């Protein structure tokens, strides 16, 4: 029997900073909501090409994205928190991607996986949209063609950091409104 490692390397979710006293613990509502949202992301896999197959490997048992709370995929934008755009987005697909992003419920985040989604990748051609940030705001870019599953999981962890540190009222602030107005999304 392998000797038991004293300090197991599984790092539990650290509790948020807050005031601790005998028997009580106080922290801000933002932090609590942030942790709840970060560890229960429902991704919408907008998988179009090769990155979609690598995403299947990320979801399968070997790399298991379920460890990060993102087990339940939602194919309808109504119940999705995270739009994962994976693969090449052609110009024919642009309006569809923008429509799906607009119909997602707030608060919503976008992870652009792969070089094709982030910048058109090796396909600098007449029919490919050179990067989805031309039509929708993107939070995290994952490089690679296709990125290894570990890189995708690193992108998910970065999204979780974003969610944890985001204040609840960000989505109704004027800066957010005119940032979206720049993309023509009201």
């Amino acid at each position, binding site marked *: 029997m392998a000797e038991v490692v004293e300090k197991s390397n599984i790092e539990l979710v650290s509790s948020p900073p807050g005031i601790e006293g005998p028997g009580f613990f106080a922290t801000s509502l933002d932090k609590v909501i942030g942790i709840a949202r970060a560890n229960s992301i429902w991704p919408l896999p907008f998988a179009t090409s090769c990155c979609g197959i690598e995403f299947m490997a990320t979801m399968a048992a070997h790399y298991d994205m379920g460890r990060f709370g993102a087990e339940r995929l939602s194919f309808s934008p109504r119940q999705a928190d995270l739009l994962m755009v994976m693969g090449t987005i052609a110009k024919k697909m642009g309006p569809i991607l923008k*429509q799906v992003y607009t*119909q997602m*419920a707030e608060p919503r985040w976008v992870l652009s996986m792969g070089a094709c989604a982030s910048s058109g990748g090796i396909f600098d051609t007449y029919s490919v949209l050179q990067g989805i940030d031309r039509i929708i705001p993107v939070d995290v870019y994952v490089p690679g063609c296709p990125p290894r599953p570990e890189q995708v999981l690193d992108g998910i962890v970065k999204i979780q950091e974003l969610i944890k540190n985001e204040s609840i009222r960000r989505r109704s602030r004027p800066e957010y409104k005119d940032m979206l107005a720049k993309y023509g999304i009201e």
Partner: protein
Amino acid sequence: MYSNNGPIDYLPIIITALVAGGFVVTTMFVTHIMGPKRQGKVKLDTFECGIESQGNARIPFSVKYFLAAILFVLFDVEVIFLYPWAVDFRNLGMAGFWEMISYMAVILIGFLYILKKGALKWDTD
């Protein structure tokens, strides 16, 4: 054997009802407050896999959908009446048994009628 069950014995039921109802109300209230509200015309449009929807959904659909649903409700209600019988199965003895059998027999005849009329046949157009 029976303790005189005064109103105090209904307390647990009331507590569970309160907790259940309370959970539903609070979560709806909290999400209503917490969730940012950004209503736009495009967002409120029906989700059609990313393209604009054409035509409306309110067109007549074939009756077999409705039949399947209503027959399920019917046989589901029948099962509900079996529960009290199952609880007091021993004391009701043979008399109760034959009553339930006749009850189920009546519904079984209805079921056979449904099968013969082919109400549940799904593949016909």
